[in-house]
């Protein structure tokens, strides 16, 4: 059975329950947004889903295989994981950093395929012009795009990304979400942690709303982002406005 699913996964760290039994699922070709306030457990659920952290209870099933027993290399080839920014990049070339995404394929070296994948990832993140620049000289947003390009270069069947657009300007955020949509159209299953609810509502097929380590709602964006849920989960009153200035589409010839 294809798809990536967490079945009742729970996790405690240092004696504190950070994830109460939760179940989520992403099918091939589906873009799922993981939303919720800070500290809700989004990153934890994503890390468990990606096999970065073994759950105390429950299990993760990736294309019919339990992640607990699946081989690391197979997992790394099948599922690409983009963590939150951990360390400043070294002065390696941007193209070399992005090419790290090809490491899971090192068992079957195919240089032409590797270099095509790297070029595609650089193009998707608008980094082709910066491919020879040292990673240490990138701006915050460029660095976020480079890290995303590294995750894209794996060309895995599933992509899990933790806040991939948090550091991006509106144009690049739109472009990245559009490229996620293209990936989904091509059959990739994506789970993306987002704070921008506008982007989440507009681009995701389904949303998973979390609060205090629990999944409190999941479904179509319109069913999840209700006024009551906004009040209960985020503690904010929402106002729906017609004439707000919202970056909607990229301007210029690419439209």
């Amino acid at each position: 059975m294809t798809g990536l699913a967490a079945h009742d996964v729970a996790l405690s760290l240092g004696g504190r329950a950070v994830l109460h039994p939760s179940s989520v699922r992403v099918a091939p070709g589906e873009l799922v947004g993981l939303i919720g306030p800070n500290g809700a457990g989004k990153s934890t659920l994503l890390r468990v889903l990606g096999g970065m952290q073994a759950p105390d209870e429950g299990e993760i099933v990736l294309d019919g295989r339990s992640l607990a027993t699946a081989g690391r290399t197979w997992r790394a080839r099948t599922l690409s994981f983009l963590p939150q920014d951990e360390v400043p990049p070294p002065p390696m070339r941007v193209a070399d950093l992005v090419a790290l995404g090809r490491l899971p394929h090192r068992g079957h070296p195919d240089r032409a395929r590797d270099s095509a994948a790297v070029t595609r990832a650089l193009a998707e993140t608008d980094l082709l012009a910066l491919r020879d620049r040292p990673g240490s000289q990138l701006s915050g947003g460029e660095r976020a795009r480079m890290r995303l390009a590294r995750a894209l270069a794996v060309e895995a069947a599933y992509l899990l990304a933790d806040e991939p657009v948090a550091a991006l300007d509106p144009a690049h955020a739109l472009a990245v979400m559009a490229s996620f949509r293209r990936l989904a159209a091509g059959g990739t299953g994506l789970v993306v942690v987002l704070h921008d609810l506008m982007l989440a509502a507009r681009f995701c097929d389904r949303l998973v709303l979390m609060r205090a380590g629990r999944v409190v709602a999941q479904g179509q964006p319109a069913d999840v982002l209700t006024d009551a849920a906004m009040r209960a989960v985020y503690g904010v009153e929402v106002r729906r406005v017609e004439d707000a200035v919202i970056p909607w589409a990229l301007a210029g010839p690419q439209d």
Partner: protein
Amino acid sequence: MTDCRDMMLIAALAGTVVLLFVLSLAWGESAIAFGPACADLLAGRHSAGAVILGQLRLPRAILAVTVGGALGLSGAALQGYLRNPLADPGVLGVSGGAALGAVLVFYTGLMGLSVAMLPLGGLAGALLAVLLLMGLVGQGGALVLLLAGAALSSFAAALTALALNLMPSPYASFEIMHWVMGSLTDRTFTHVWISLPGTILGCLLMLTTARALDALALGDEVAESLGFRLRGPVGVQARVVLGAALSVGSCVAVAGAIGFVGLVIPHLLRPLTGHQPSRLLLPSFLGGAVLLLVADAAVRVLSTGTEIQIGVLTALAGAPVFFFRVLQMRRATS
């Protein structure tokens, strides 16, 4: 293109190693006819030239290559693993353990038993330090490793100082001071055989982590997501630490503490390898060998009367490189 440049760098460094190795055999304190000595050595004739060549110069040159290489490679692997260009094989505390082991051999008078006792004591000290280090670190990460190494190396230094303090004869203290400074003088094939297994095994272990070190450039989680196991008995951390500790421990046991090679060589070669940790490993081995062969030659040239210890020389040559880098960085940031 990258591969081609890497091959050229490796070929240039390897060529330099071979050239310096031959020079180091051909040239020394006593003038011998190199050609006939080589012929005698190969034919198994015990002429004076063959003895000098085979029993003094050859082990010394081999040790310069293996010790320098192991120090350079260990520095590159540790700097890659810790993502810190200032990491040095000394941070593990294993050199301190080896020094302590050797000092205890002096102190207890075991020295008198055999010429091999000193390096064997160093090796035992290094192995004990590795075991302690691995036990202390357990499943901890890089920070735990650095703290454990710092604790271990200060403790070993304190015990070494205590042994020096309590040493009955001032002559023995002097001998120890000299030994700790590092030297390749008067080393024989006994020393080579004592250090070689650990050095080779350690270097091979470190070389298995090349791709993982690249993956670590963007953080631990990225490396794990790319399929590399970082912790655990066969994880990247265990292989880097055990590899560096085994090879450095084996080297310190026979050659004393030779500083700065593991720090300076990867630092100098990094820009030539695109700052990529995997591409830095082999060049750092060769670069370390070049530096130690040169330093050993310099020791022989400069020595008139009291021989300058090779460890003193590498530190004297290495420190200015860092002064220069400081000035460069200051210019770049101002």
